């Protein structure tokens, strides 16, 4: 038997064949060949996936686009097999503005435009003076937006918050929640790591309290229980109470995300800052937080996204946000039977906002990478 020599010969001939050095193929065909059809198995998987995708997407596309009805005022306009987007377009005004008085809608539009402008300014890489813009976004903008939306000053007609609703309300809650919970969360995270026992204790109790209660409970407490404790002459706005509740609730989560980042920063960084004579807030603001926050961008954005979606819970205390106003429309006897359109549209709106946040965070992460 010469199996051993035979197998060693086989091993020799089975040596990895020489290959061409990798060449970057250009264009669509090149990309396809390299990524989807590089081997028989790969090709098979690609084909199967393609078929499945088409099988799932095709009916959806038929329903949502091809056979859908877009134009019209009433349900009589919906004659086709597909979706009846007339349901959405006929109610678009209340979906976006709630019960905001029609004559005052321009005020909301200005706030929307400012919000879009501020975000675009902060996001587009070319525009200068980002620091000042961020300062305006955190100070000037909320004040202007508040007076525009609530009115009651500068000759603007007051619009009570019970008339706010729809996308406008959802964005108000989300923006206030996001802008409020990050700084409070950072302070809580620093507090939890403080060397002062009192500060540490207060932070721990605060974080653990808010993290331990479901958001629904917080909202109920804010709307039902708070009035029981506060004298009835003092009337807190229902929206304001919900905003405070949401902000504190999410700041506890944010604190834990940020603390994760703080713990990952080597103690030597803080010590180097000390040895340079920097004070506590300088060390945190210039050295530790920039590194810690960068590490936990995915966690922060994750929390933002969760916050954005959970604004829809305010429907249980009777605030009519985007989802609840669509849902209210479904019970309109004029429009029974269009639940699918309503929920798909709501989902799409939430998805667009959340996906944008996710993409933007990835870009920031890439930009902040400094090779360590």
């Amino acid at each position: 038997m010469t199996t051993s020599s035979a197998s060693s010969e086989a091993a020799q001939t089975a040596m990895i064949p020489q290959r061409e050095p990798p060449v970057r193929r250009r264009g669509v065909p090149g990309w396809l060949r390299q990524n989807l059809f590089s081997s028989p198995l790969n090709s098979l998987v690609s084909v199967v996936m393609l078929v499945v995708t088409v099988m799932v997407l095709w009916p959806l596309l038929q329903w949502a686009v091809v056979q859908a009805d877009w134009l019209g005022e009433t349900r009589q306009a919906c004659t086709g097999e597909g979706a009846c987007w007339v349901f959405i377009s006929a109610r678009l005004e209340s979906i976006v503005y709630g019960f905001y008085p029609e004559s005052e809608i321009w005020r909301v539009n200005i706030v929307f435009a400012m919000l879009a402008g501020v975000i675009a300014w902060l996001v587009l890489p070319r525009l200068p003076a980002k620091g000042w813009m961020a300062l305006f976004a955190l100070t000037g903008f909320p004040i202007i937006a508040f007076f525009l939306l609530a009115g009651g000053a500068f000759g603007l007609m007051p619009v009570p918050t019970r008339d706010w609703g729809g996308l406008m309300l959802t964005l108000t809650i989300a923006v206030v929640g996001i802008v409020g919970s990050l700084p409070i969360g950072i302070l809580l995270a620093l507090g939890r790591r403080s060397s002062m026992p009192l500060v540490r204790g207060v932070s721990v109790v605060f974080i653990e309290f808010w993290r331990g209660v479901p958001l629904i409970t917080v909202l109920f407490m804010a709307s039902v229980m708070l009035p029981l404790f506060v004298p009835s002459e003092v009337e807190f706005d229902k929206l304001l109470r919900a905003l405070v509740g949401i902000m504190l609730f999410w700041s506890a989560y944010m604190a834990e995300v940020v603390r994760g980042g703080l713990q990952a920063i080597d103690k030597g960084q803080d010590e180097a800052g000390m040895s340079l004579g920097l004070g506590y807030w300088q060390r945190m603001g210039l050295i530790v937080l920039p590194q810690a926050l960068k590490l936990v961008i995915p966690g922060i954005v994750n929390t933002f996204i969760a916050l954005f979606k959970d604004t829809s819970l305010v429907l249980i205390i009777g605030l009519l946000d985007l989802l609840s106003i669509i849902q209210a429309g479904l019970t309109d006897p004029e429009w029974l039977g269009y639940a699918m359109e309503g929920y798909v549209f709501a989902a799409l709106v939430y998805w667009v906002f959340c996906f944008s946040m996710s993409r933007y965070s990835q870009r920031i992460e890439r930009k902040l990478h400094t090779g360590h």
Partner: protein
Amino acid sequence: MSEATASRDNGTEPMIEMTGLNKWYGDFHVLRDIDLTVQRGERIVICGPSGSGKSTLIRCINRLEAHQQGGITVGGITMTEDIKRIEQIRRQVGMVFQHFNLFPHLSVLENCCLSQIWVQKKPRHEAEKLAMEYLERVQIAEQAKKYPGQLSGGQQQRVAIARALCMRPEVMLFDEPTSALDPEMIKEVLDVMVELAREGMTMICVTHEMGFAKTVADRVIFMDQGQIIEEAPPETFFNHPRSERTKLFLSQILGH
């Protein structure tokens, strides 16, 4: 402030004075009755076995560690619990760490400008000018725009030295500045330190580079188990050590 300026006029006053210093970590007695006086312009090398308290000792000088007993005076300022006073001391004391501890999110130049701008409140262009001067001196000016993560260990440590010098400190502390470096990079860092010593900087170096100790040190201090066992000028220290523990230590690090 008045104490700091007063001390600068009085050139005969010691730079650092430690008397009866004791420190514990829990029950563990790390520093035992340390008395040490460092004159202005003096260069001290501290050596000793691992865990003997060398790092702890020099970290007490700028209060990266708090001691429990005894007194420390730096440049005429007596150390207290008061954070203002501690920061006043820290501004006179530059420190170089074993693992560099550069700020990775800031460029080399920004690393060097940070304390000038935020502690000394200098305008940015002035801070950058001084930073470039010191980066030039440690021969790394051409890397000023890079981030620490893009430099070699030896280059990073030279940047760390420049960063500390940018505060214009009265005294420099080095905690094993070369022990995290590959052998071929040790020399470039030691050269910078030798140069600094020639210019008359007061230095306290924890190091096992005995060649460095022989060339620049005015005094070598040997520590063991939290105590100063022996201190002497380098010739005496290396050729005629008095204590048995020093002899044992020297035979271990020089003997192979």
